């Protein structure tokens, strides 16, 4: 039997090779783009690295007029906002995943799941605008005075919550970032919670376990490496998030212990200053910042992917 005419083996081997070559070339392009980005950041930042050496990472100077640049404050701002964002987003995401897999009635799961996914679809510029015009004033009027009053006088953590309640600062940026990464962590957590064999949960129920015990002693231990992978994924997203943070972080090159004070992050510094950078060294320093950001997010995302792949191997590709 011969194939239908439009599938006839008219031009076999040569066309096959060409098709394979084209698709493989496109696949190579993905690698070239990532490699090219890394190389061009390293190349663009070389002037800053040559001029300042290791002090670039350790110095808190950021003085375009006298041409002294150090990355310490943007690095601190990036790490601080991302870590606080995780402190907010991780428990919330686990709670939402628990709700979506075990608690919500079936008809409610899809719409609520989709609503949480939509949080990831909102463009980050919208988060930024809302943060600047609505959320920062809200923080300044209601949350920050309360924090200063209740916690500002405490030893050790007190200094974190002192200062004028201006709304723009590390804490506000962290909360906005936390909201933004909730859907990413939730998506993974929901999938792996769903993949926990029901026999395990049923056994726990039969032993009289509370919901709390099922979550903390069955579900979370069983899904541990995927959850850690999801946290790293959220961290990778948070580190590189630009627009939302640019709006609410305040673009201040100050190192203050207080979370209520304006600060800066790597991405926000680049977004704010790159088009205004008037010297080669200034521009190179900003690209050097981008290089550091790129390397760190690359490592974090690699870790995330490896953790998630481990889960994929042990439980099949269903997730």
């Amino acid at each position, binding site marked *: 039997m011969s194939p239908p005419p439009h*599938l006839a083996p008219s031009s076999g081997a040569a066309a*096959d090779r060409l098709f*394979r070559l084209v698709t493989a070339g496109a696949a190579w392009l993905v690698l070239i783009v990532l490699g090219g980005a890394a190389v061009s950041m390293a190349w663009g930042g070389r002037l800053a690295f040559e001029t300042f050496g290791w002090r670039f990472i350790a110095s808190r100077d950021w003085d375009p007029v006298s041409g002294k640049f150090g990355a310490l404050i943007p690095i601190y701002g990036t790490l601080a906002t991302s870590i606080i964002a995780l402190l907010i987003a991780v*428990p919330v995401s686990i709670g939402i995943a628990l709700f979506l897999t*075990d608690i919500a009635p079936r008809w409610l799961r899809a719409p609520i799941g*989709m609503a949480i996914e939509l949080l990831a679809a909102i463009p980050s510029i919208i988060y930024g605008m809302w943060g600047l015009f609505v959320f920062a004033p809200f923080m300044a009027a209601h949350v920050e005075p309360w924090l200063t009053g209740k916690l500002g006088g405490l030893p050790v953590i007190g200094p974190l919550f002192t200062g004028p309640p201006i709304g723009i600062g590390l804490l506000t940026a962290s909360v906005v970032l936390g909201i933004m990464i909730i859907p990413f962590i939730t998506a993974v957590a929901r999938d792996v919670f769903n993949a926990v064999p029901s026999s395990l949960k049923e056994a726990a129920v039969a032993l009289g376990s509370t919901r709390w015990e099922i979550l903390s002693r069955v579900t979370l231990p069983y899904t541990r490496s995927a959850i850690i992978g999801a946290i790293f994924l959220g961290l990778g997203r948070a580190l590189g998030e630009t*627009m939302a943070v640019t*709006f609410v972080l305040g673009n201040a090159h100050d190192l203050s212990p207080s979370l209520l004070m304006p600060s800066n992050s790597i991405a926000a510094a680049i977004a704010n200053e790159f088009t205004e950078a008037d010297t080669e060294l200034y521009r190179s320093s900003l690209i050097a910042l981008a290089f550091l950001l790129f390397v760190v997010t690359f490592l974090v995302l690699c870790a995330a992917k490896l953790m998630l792949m481990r889960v994929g191997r042990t439980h099949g590709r269903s997730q």
Partner: protein
Amino acid sequence: MMPLRRKLADGAALLFALAATAFGLIWLVWILWTTMAEGAAALTPSLFTQMTPPPGGSGGLLNAFYGSAVMVLVALVLGTPVGIAAGTYLAEHGRHSRLAAIVGFINDILLSAPSIVIGLFVYELAVRPAGHFSGFAGAIALAIILLPIVVRTTDEALRLVPNQMREAAFALGVPAWRITSRIIYKAGLSGIVTGVLLGLARIAGETAPLLFTALNNQFWSASLAQPLANVPVVIFQYAMSPYDQWHALAWAGALVLTAFVLGLNLMVRFFARRGNR
């Protein structure tokens, strides 16, 4: 009967899940409500008929809408074929090769890579050598953001096509490239289209990669070789400005952008869900 302490622990888990879900949903409602209320107040017909105004003047966002549409379309034209081809390699020709494993891994990282770095990369690649910002550079940056999304969804859509279809075609003596182009693509089409549309929704709102590539243009320009106005960067600049008229225009732009992005997302999900049944 459970002792009271254990009952409380049980209730605490319930409460924790409910509170977390409410916490997640509140932000969605709050952000959408603000955007709708502020945007609707600023929505006028002139938004779509007039150019971006100088400070204090009145005007619209026509040039920005045009610029965004052009850049997104060019990005689609550049990014979609490459993405589909690479996704095809991962799912079909290179399925068990080492290259496919590495590309699949790197692609997932590119998917979450900071978009501001992509913007700087295209700045170094296309803007600095040319000596000026351009709409074309913006389109390249958006295409790079789009690429991993299309690769990923193509790969997933093609993997869902049952192997029997490939085997049946092979048995008939059909060359591999025709199996892919005439049979596998047809079977995976809805998944690929879904991916491209979700990618479109994503790049329509991207701001960071355009800051150093397309920049902005206060005037009407149809040329991709020149700086090109676009909605996200106009929103950014206007929102950061001290002028009330600019704020109003930024909100109007934000409303249109959000409606477009969320509308597209909901539509795609709705049809994807129906297609799966």
